[in-house]
């Protein structure tokens, strides 16, 4: 330590008079507080503002599709493909463990339920998926349904394939009586028809529509869309006067755009001339002060 120079000239070794803590300790405290403030600002600022669309990020994280679902009133919600298409929550299944010396709570801690259904997951992948919270229900449902999976030409949002799904009878709402009835019905069906299991709402809908199975009690197979709605949404002829107001507005915009051509010079002229005047005066002041000192 002989003849040693303090790091940064010891500027951060100054201490406060009360606790005698160095400035660098205070800077850590400040950084910790700032971290919390930043986290809260992001969380309750821009992130919360997009709450209805968080499914897009969750779908990206789970490497799955996303789905916009809606009822007949077109109130949309962006949810994961699992919630939109799968009937069962496989994580809630009951699993039997073979006897082992390893304590049960440790086995449960490292157990990934997807390995009970899918053969192609190695132990490393299973651990990564388990602790990365990747949901594998869609893959499981596809496999159990012999890869009979409805994939309509969907849309892509920011690289995430997204289905637009009409759910007119609240099938995808997990607490709804319709969902519970469907779950119970399909569970029984699957027990009896191991080779032709139902794991997706679209397969259930198709089988009900084709009359292969009856609809579960309390579940609607179809809903009626009244003609006035269809006629107004898909007009066969459009009256010109329906758009007349908008034509007039565009005409006004065009005229105003020409008239306002000069207005874009207002600010540059005002600030430019006052700035030039200020520079001129400062220049004169400097010249005068240099000449007299």
């Amino acid at each position, binding site marked *: 330590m002989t003849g040693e120079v303090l790091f940064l000239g*010891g500027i951060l070794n100054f201490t406060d008079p009360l606790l005698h803590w160095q400035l660098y300790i205070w800077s850590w405290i400040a950084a910790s507080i700032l971290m919390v403030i930043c986290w809260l600002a992001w969380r309750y600022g821009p992130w919360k503002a997009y709450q209805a669309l968080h499914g897009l990020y969750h779908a990206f994280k789970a490497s799955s599709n996303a789905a916009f679902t809606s009822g007949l009133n077109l109130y949309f919600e962006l949810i994961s493909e699992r919630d939109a298409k799968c009937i069962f929550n496989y994580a809630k299944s009951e699993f039997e463990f073979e006897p082992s010396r390893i304590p049960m709570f440790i086995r449960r801690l490292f157990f990934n339920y997807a390995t009970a259904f899918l053969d192609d997951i190695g132990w490393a992948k299973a651990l990564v998926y388990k602790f990365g919270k990747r949901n594998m229900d869609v893959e499981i449902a596809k496999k159990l349904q012999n890869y009979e999976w409805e994939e309509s030409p969907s849309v892509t949002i920011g690289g995430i394939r997204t289905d637009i799904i009409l759910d007119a009878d609240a099938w995808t709402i997990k607490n709804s009586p319709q969902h519970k009835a469907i779950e119970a019905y399909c569970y029984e069906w699957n027990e009896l028809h191991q080779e032709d299991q139902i794991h997706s709402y679209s397969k259930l809908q198709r089988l009900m529509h084709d009359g292969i199975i009856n609809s579960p009690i309390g579940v609607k197979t179809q809903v009626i869309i009244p003609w006035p709605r269809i006629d107004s949404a898909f007009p066969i002829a459009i009256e010109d006067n329906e758009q007349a107001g908008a034509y007039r507005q565009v005409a006004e915009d065009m005229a105003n755009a020409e008239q306002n051509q000069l207005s874009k010079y207002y600010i540059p*002229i005002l600030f430019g001339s006052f700035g030039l005047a200020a520079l001129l005066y400062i220049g004169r002041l400097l010249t005068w002060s240099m000449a007299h000192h």
Partner: protein
Amino acid sequence: MPTEIVAQPLAGPVLQDWQHLNSFFDHPLILGIPIWVFISVIFLLALILVNLSWLFKIRKLAPVRGYRIAQKKATQEDVQTWVLGKTQKLTIECLRYIDSVLSYYNPAKITRWHHPARSSVIHIGGIPAMMVSDDYDQTRDIVSEIAICHACDEFNKDQKWWMGFRDELKKNNIELPDGMEEEGVAKPLNNFSDIRERGRLLLGYKYPEGIPIPAYSIFSPSKFSKYFPKGRSAGFLGGVFIQKARELKTDVKEPGLWEKYLPIGILFGLGVIAILAAWMAPVGK
């Protein structure tokens, strides 16, 4: 004998008032750099990481930025719009809505959509929005589209209903309208003119209360496109708008010369006065 004074280097760094060393944190770790520097770097990196991770999360939502913009603006003219492209991309944008017509704020984008019905307004996070696509000049109601596609598919498959309907008409001595039948079977409904010429009428007979659709349906944006009227793209409607607006523009009162040049003249005069004042103002004695 004079005493010789030899300057000895101090044991340890010279400390000013209020400067103190911490026995642990000021201990040099590598290359004489004290431990506190490494800890400070860790804190700095953590701070950067917190912000970058959030920035990354928010950036993933960039395609739906229009949702936030529309939420912020929230005037009658600003409408959150889901734009479906033929490229299958879906973006959420904030468009301008005037008198049943949607358009971009940027005048360079001429695309326009007509909004015919309240029922086609969608909601997301409580905010109303419209759904449009570049290949059709109307806002889209997915429920009605699913209904028309479903009804046409069922009609094309179900010749039994057609036979019954035709027999019923014959029984009541009602003449079958022309162009409805082809070699004893119903002409299929495959495009807009089929629906306009006979489809709407026939589907009305087949489903008098309305069209029944499956309670759970995956919407296909492209499936309905075969029923779009030919040549009615959103860009075409925009072109028609500009053409008609040009004709109307002749009615708009042209501003006079004074009205046009007075404001800029006043500003220019003010600027000249400011420059002259700066040039002539006294700077000292």
